[in-house]
């Protein structure tokens, strides 16, 4: 068996740079789909903690509500989806 090839990551010209860390991906996702900033009916804008935002996203997606960035949550964030936010603002 040859040693596993050391995977070399290449930046492809014209590629949408998506090589971001899992935490960056998660924060971007939670922001983009309305989980982080919620505008209360009263109009008051509140920023919830990442853990709370994660729990809300996990509930919306029917995942286990751990508040942690676990594997299934990360996978769900990488799946193709609609661009409309999940939290109606």
């Amino acid at each position, binding site marked *: 068996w040859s040693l596993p*090839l050391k*995977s*070399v*990551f*290449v930046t*492809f*010209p*014209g*590629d*949408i740079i*998506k*090589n971001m860390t899992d935490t960056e991906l998660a924060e971007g996702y939670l922001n983009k*789909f309305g989980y982080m900033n919620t505008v209360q009916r009263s109009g008051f804008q509140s920023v919830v903690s990442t853990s709370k935002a994660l729990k809300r996203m996990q*509930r*919306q*997606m*029917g995942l286990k509500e751990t508040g942690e960035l676990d594997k299934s949550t990360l996978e*769900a964030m*990488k*799946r*193709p*989806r*609609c*661009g*409309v936010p*999940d939290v*109606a*603002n």
Partner: protein
Amino acid sequence: YQTFEGDLKWDHQDVTYRIINYTPDMEPSLIDEAFARAFKVWSDVTPLTFTRLFDGTADIMISFGKQNHGDPYPFDGKDGLLAHAYPPGEGLQGDAHFDDDEYWTLGAGPAIKTRYGNAEGAMCHFPFTFEGKSYTTCTTDGRSDNLPWCATTADFSIDKKYGFCPSELLYTVDGNANGAECVFPFVFLGEKYDSCTTEGRTDGYRWCATTSNFDNDKTYGFCPSRVCTETAVIGGNSEGEPCHFPFVFLGKQYDSCTSEGRGDGKLWCSTTDSYDDDAKWGFCPDQGYSLFLVAAHEFGHALGLDHSNIRDALMYPMYSYVKDFSLHKDDIEGIQYLYGGKTGPDPTPPGPKTPTTTPYPDPDEPTTTTTAPTPVDPTKDACEMTKFDTITVIEGELHFFKDGHYWKMPSESNGESKGPFSISERWPALPAVVDSAFEDILARKLYFFSGNRFWVYTGKSVLGPRGIEKLGLPNSIQKVEGALQRGKGKVLLFSGENYWRLDVKDQKIDKGYPRYTDVVFGGVPNDAHDVFQYKGHIYFCRDRFYWRMNSRRQVDRVGYVKYDLLKC
């Protein structure tokens, strides 16, 4: 299910849509059909109807775009965001946008509707065998004209059924050349091009000239995706170009797509023999995303539904391919919360396209003698009339006036016309020919116009005849041909190519009139001999036909008075 803040929804049931542009990934007719089926998902369970417009502004404007595509929410290249849509309302509201960095199919790999050949536009059958070899894409094998083709059954050798695949040598999409094929070579900015190019554009779409010189003729079109042909790439920096096998990457040779060099596991290839030298690449086609499923979801948004947290619901945010789709209970509850259930007949299975207006029965065919209601005077059958003096709504029912008689059409849709009745029996003061009439519902009065005189009935009592100049109309008017109640005690009176606005309370024509009919009511004949309002639509009649206009002043149907209104 969720609805948007304030339960945003359309304030009318006849929703219109317009397809602004097409993705090159699929045949335009397949795209039209996918969108029509996506709308049908919702019209099957609500009273909503969806009418396609081909110009002007529709409620739901549908377009494809990449990255920054003209609204504050850019797309993000291949995968990730697939599409988005806005809740009901004016302008951008209600519109649906699809990311054209995606590979759009019907969800199960290349969806190729053939052209020409002998298969009458049938879809490619993948895999198919030809001369003992199996093909999973279109091929130019067996041809010397480099046109990609496919079999439309599993074995070409047996069935000999085939058609041509999308190719810029056969047609182009959008642009200004009405689908004409490319001309190679063509000159653009003084340069010669032997193939489609993205030069001159920033959106990465491949295009070509449809004459030999674009600089002179300025005619062009977009090149259909050849993803079905030679594994043309998607996205990257060579959209639509074929993979080049073998190719070299980091000194290693590859004979097929690879995910090497990427952290996301996506398959890609080089479009030249060496990625190391040219860095020209793109993603290899996969099953693609079902345009029908994504559109059905986005149209849910455009009708007022937000995301659902039911994993199997159509309005769940994440995409998942379903072969035999049916709407989930959660989606149905959501959309019926907004618009109620389906009131009309059960959805009929998709059959051959029936024209929106019933064609005249063929005069040679024996007309089936239905047991028509025995009219008072059988020679006066409303269905024998080619044109009425006037049509109007009185007490909620359509009334058709002609030569001293009138017929009534009950408001329920499957009713049949009743009559004829004698005008002079019900309204003794009126002449035989009534040019137009309208009902002032609040004051419970009926106005009748004939020539340059008018009568006002309140129950059995009548005021008139009086000259129409009493209302402030010019006595140059020969006759008033139509009347439209506009609410707030205002009625529009039509004559020739003009109309006036009458203030019924003051019995006076408002200032600033007349106005030209065709300026305000675009798309209808300006010599209509009858104009009336019925079930939220405005009808302009000329001869046997009517032009129907919806509440947003868009002509959404042209039909036969006889068949569509009188139900003959």
